[in-house]
């Protein structure tokens, strides 16, 4: 397997080179472009680490959505950048920080080299208990059964995150439409893409959720793809983002966590513990939670990228500029 080691070495060198560029680049925009490429390389690294589920999440979130977020922010912040660069700490301080960070990295590297062998693992325990859930994908099994509280809290914490983003709007803008995604102004390439790509994307997203029970995939990966398609449609100006006061949209935002909590609470009666599933119905219940969570996570991810509500006149001005 020496040729595999060659590939791994090439990957590691590329990842480190890009990380160096992200850290050292002078302009934030160039660093953000580097981060898009970096996310893509990490996807390949995750495949090399035999973690296809994680690779899918990284592909959808890490390089797709995060790239959109960071590039948009870098473009908005570019006018203020030159002043920042003057505030860099002095050379001596930078060298000191560099030495300390290198020491930390060396410590972590030592930990990696001294990891116990054979490695402690819960893989066998997961494999032993997986049949009880009716699932075939051990990662989904861990997310939905063994560490269900973790997943529940995560799906809940996304909602306060969105509230945090919304609360950054001005008072006049409250109740309006999110304003980060500037509708596209001219040309037909982007609207064409936004018409052709989403059917495929929605198909792939739903497939990921559905197949996630038994094969790599799952709600987070599927939701990230669905959210990406929604954002594409909004960026192309084909659909406006929903108003933040929209009742139906707010309901969709919380339906997943509500579903999760409801089924979890029912587990106290039916299976004797919070978030426990009665064995006969484990798989249908888990699928129900997955579908609810997919809807909510899609809505949250899309609206996180769409940003806080903007004043209405500004939005209309941008729409007019488009035509």
């Amino acid at each position: 397997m020496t040729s595999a080691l060659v590939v791994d070495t090439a990957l590691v060198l590329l990842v480190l080179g890009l990380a160096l560029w992200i850290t050292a680049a002078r302009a934030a925009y160039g660093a953000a472009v580097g981060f898009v490429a970096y996310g893509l390389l990490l996807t390949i690294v995750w495949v090399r680490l035999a973690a296809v589920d994680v690779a899918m999440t990284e592909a959808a979130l890490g390089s797709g959505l995060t790239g959109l977020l960071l590039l948009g922010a870098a473009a908005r912040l570019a006018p203020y950048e030159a002043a920042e660069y003057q505030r860099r700490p002095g050379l001596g301080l930078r060298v000191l920080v560099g030495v300390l960070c290198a020491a930390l990295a060396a410590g972590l590297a030592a930990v990696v080299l001294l990891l116990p062998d054979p490695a402690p693992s819960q893989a066998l325990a997961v494999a032993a208990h997986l049949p009880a859930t009716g699932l075939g994908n051990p990662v989904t099994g861990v997310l939905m059964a063994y560490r269900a509280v973790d997943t529940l809290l995560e799906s809940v914490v996304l909602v306060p995150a969105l509230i945090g983003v919304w609360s950054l709007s001005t008072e006049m803008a409250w109740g309006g439409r999110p304003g980060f995604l500037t509708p596209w102004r001219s040309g037909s390439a982007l609207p064409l893409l936004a018409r052709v790509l989403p059917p495929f994307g929605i198909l792939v997203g739903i497939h990921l959720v559905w197949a996630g029970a038994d094969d790599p995939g799952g709600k987070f990966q599927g939701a990230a793809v669905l959210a990406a398609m929604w954002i594409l449609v909004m960026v192309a100006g084909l659909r406006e983002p929903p108003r933040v006061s929209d009742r139906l949209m707010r309901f969709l935002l919380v339906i997943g966590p509500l579903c999760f909590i409801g089924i979890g609470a029912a587990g106290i009666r039916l299976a004797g513990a919070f978030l426990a599933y009665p064995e006969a119905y484990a798989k249908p219940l888990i699928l129900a939670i997955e579908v609810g969570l997919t809807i909510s996570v899609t809505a949250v991810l899309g609206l996180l990228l769409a940003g806080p509500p903007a004043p209405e006149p500004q939005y209309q001005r941008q729409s007019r500029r488009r035509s």
Partner: protein
Amino acid sequence: MTAFLLGAAAFILGTVALGLVRILRGPGNADRMLAAQLLGTGGVAALLLLGVATGVGAVSEVGLLLALLAAFGSVAFVTGAGRSSDASAADSAADTQGATRSEPE
């Protein structure tokens, strides 16, 4: 055959890595985006080669995701470029003409 496929993956990764010099040199942000885009396609190719060579299942689905979202970086680039008073777009346009326009700051 496995060794050949892995070698091809390493070769493609290496070439697109050379293309990353464009990220370093720029000069415009559009050129950096081009390099990221080339890395995207090359990364998908390397991923497929790796997946088939090592027999990891579902790799083509990861490639599908990457291909599906490959355009997003450039979409962010063009929408963002129109936003900040066309600073980065003008920067790249100046490069296209071979003119040396000074930085706005």
